[in-house]
């Protein structure tokens, strides 16, 4: 599928737009800054004036965070976020991509560099003058919630881990957040899956390319996501499900890479996208069939739950809510704020940090008013942003199930 073909396919959804502005009402960015006119203007409206190959003059579309809430709420089925992603790519092609956007969009490169020197790297991340310099030289905002390296990788643990030799095989797509920053979350995912009778296989894998795609580096993003698809496709073809806990990365495999990077007809990515499941989605379906182990011990905790934009982009509702309601003693309070503002690497950038904080202000306020000291959220960059914005701990829903199982 050439780039033009995929763009034409997105453009064909343009004519379904009836200008109702519903997408404008849900956009977390255009509601807090005049720099981004809004999904309707930047998307279906401006797209009519864009001829393919002739990049747009205006660059306001660079402020779109790619959260996808506009596409989700559009009653006419217009591919708004995807059209904006293509427009952003065209702007980047003309104006070029900064060194910053080439670096912070490669988490596996940063991970390999930072992990061996984690204490030093983390000290620099906390050292104020270094962050001021980093902002000036690299353009990463001094207050941005840059996560500390774990100093060890999840795969190192996985190599030593001896799981059960029988049970239904499932492939775990852990993602970069788990690999370099939150290996303990990965360990809990494996423990919960094994507790429910799965045999977890963790093939060699790299980044899914989502950060590169968000910053308009489509060619590099294609390399990463296709390499990942090659690694996972053999398992997918033998009927094995691919499970991930990072809802942004599983959405990239499920839909975004195929729609935005024009890879609709790549055979490997097609089978992988069908077999990819979010961990909570998988466990809820297990529960529906009566196969989920519900030997949950009480967890006396008040927890606020925020569904990240890209979890909602799976269009499967909020399975985490159903699972958490099975845990005795757990008082779950669903927040209805739209977005924490971070959108992966978006909120790390100097010129977008304050927009991200303003976009997340409603969520931070709801957390404060919820009476919960703990916030459950499916996506790691959102957890780091929520911790940054509310000074409360944020965990993946799986961690609460793991605690309830007393594994």
């Amino acid at each position, binding site marked *: 599928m050439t780039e033009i073909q995929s763009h034409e396919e997105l453009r064909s959804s343009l004519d379904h737009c009836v200008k109702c*502005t519903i997408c404008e*009402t849900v956009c977390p960015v255009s509601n807090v800054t005049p720099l981004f006119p809004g999904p309707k203007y930047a998307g279906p409206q401006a797209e009519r004036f864009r001829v393919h190959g002739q990049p747009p003059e205006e660059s306001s579309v660079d402020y779109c965070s790619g959260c996808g809430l506009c596409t989700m709420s559009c*009653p006419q089925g217009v591919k708004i976020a995807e059209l904006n992603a293509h427009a952003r790519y065209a702007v980047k092609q003309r104006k070029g991509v900064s060194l910053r956007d080439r670096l912070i969009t490669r988490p596996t490169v940063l991970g390999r560099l930072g992990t061996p020197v984690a204490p030093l790297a983390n000290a620099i991340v906390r050292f104020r003058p270094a962050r001021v310099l980093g902002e000036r030289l690299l353009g990463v905002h001094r207050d941005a919630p840059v996560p500390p390296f774990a100093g060890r990788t999840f795969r190192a643990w996985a190599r030593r881990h001896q799981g059960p030799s029988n049970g239904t095989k499932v492939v775990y797509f852990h993602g970069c957040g788990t690999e370099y920053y939150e290996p303990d979350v990965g360990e809990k995912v494996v423990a919960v899956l094994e507790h429910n009778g799965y045999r977890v296989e963790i093939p060699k894998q790299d980044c899914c390319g989502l950060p590169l795609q968000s910053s308009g580096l489509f060619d590099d993003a294609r390399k990463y996501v296709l390499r990942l698809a090659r690694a996972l496709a053999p398992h997918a073809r033998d009927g094995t499900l691919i499970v991930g806990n990072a809802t942004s990365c599983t959405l990239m495999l499920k839909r975004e890479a195929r729609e935005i990077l024009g890879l609709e007809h790549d055979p490997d990515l097609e089978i992988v996208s069908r077999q990819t499941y979010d961990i909570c989605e998988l466990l809820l379906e297990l529960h529906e069939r009566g196969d989920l182990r519900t030997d949950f011990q009480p967890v006396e905790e008040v927890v606020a739950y925020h569904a990240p934009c890209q979890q909602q982009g799976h269009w499967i*509702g909020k399975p985490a809510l159903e699972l958490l309601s099975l845990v005795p003693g757990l008082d779950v309070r669903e927040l209805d704020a739209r977005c924490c503002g971070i959108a992966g690497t978006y909120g790390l950038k100097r010129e977008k940090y304050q927009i991200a904080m303003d976009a997340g202000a409603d969520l931070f306020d709801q957390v404060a008013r919820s009476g919960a000291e703990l916030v459950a959220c499916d996506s790691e960059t959102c957890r780091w942003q929520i911790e940054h914005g509310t000074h409360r701990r944020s965990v993946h829903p799986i961690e609460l199930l793991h605690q309830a199982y007393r594994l």
Partner: protein
Amino acid sequence: MTASLTYDAIVLGAGVAGLTAGTRLAEDGARVCVLAKGVGSTHLAPGTIDVLGYEPARVDEPGAVLPGFVAAHPEHPYALIGVDAIAPALKWFATRIERGPQPGYRYMGGLERNHLLPTAVGAVRPSALVPETMAAGEIASPAPVCVVGARVLRDFHASLCAANLLRAGVEARAVELELDVGRPEANALGLARRFDAPAFRAAFAARLLPLLRSGERVALPAIVGLSDPHGAWSDLEHRLGRPVFEIPTLPPSAPGIRVYNAVRAALRAAGGRLVLGAEVLGAERDGDRINAVRAHSSGHDTVYGARWFVLATGGFASGAIELGSDWQARETVLGLPLRGMPATGEQRFTADYFGPQPMSTVGVAVDSSLLAQGTENVFVAGAALPGAVPWREGSGEGIALASGNFVAQAVQEREGAAATA
């Protein structure tokens, strides 16, 4: 297809009818999931609850006129639902607003008398139940009106509104205020958020007060608060020392979004689920029974099984009913038979756009209990119902609320009967 998720009832569509049916079912104890391709029409609608505005003459007392109207229109949803089911549905809605996320915000009125309120172009519109923030706009009230506009809100023209109100016999004039919102133009939603902030209101009231004449009531575009409309409105009335009322604007509609937020909160409070983006692609039928629907989700589809289904996907405007190039209309989600279509070869449209159109009453064929024809477990609610012309009758929200409540009750009765059988 094996159902990946099962519920007692699945509702298709997240407009007023779908959210109402889903919330009532959840409140009655059913496990409910509302599936919707996207957000419903609430974000576009003025936020008033229109039960019966024209028949075709303008209606002042809907309660008195409805029995005659229903007798004259036996196919109308109100005829099938029963006139006496309408008032409880309005009551149900009003209490969900009052218990909702907007503290103190409430609706006023009922079937006794329609409010006659000005529109953005200064015309007059009858509505049975209206937000408290609009009630002071009553056309019959003698107090003169000062219509306040702002250049930054290009969707509202105060002078046009005032001029037409004058022609309708209401003493009205227009005032334009500079609103600094840090951007060249703003829509009603952005401004409604600003009016949630006391400081913004204080500055606005201070600039407006000296321009007002004694005895004037103030008409504003519907931008008086989004999450705290009651607080914003009563604060403005206090600061300006006179009645203030909102006039609905072009979309995005702040009053409409307040309705969505309130009923969505009631659905959540009752344990009901909502999945946006889940366009239903097909259904698994077993004779007259639908066992499951297949909804589009990222990567692979999701199959939802249930005992009961409510089709609340709307009419032509939402694309739920489509007229093809073969001049045949079809219901696009479950492929259910329609009623009200002119016979093959007969005219589909007349030249007079606002005149009676041959296809205006097309809807999903239902029996007297709103069960879709040819099914034993699919109910129909809202604009998908045949026999009504909501935009001409001013009956859209009335039908949505009454039919939403009606089908929820019908499911409960059948569930109760099945349980005791």
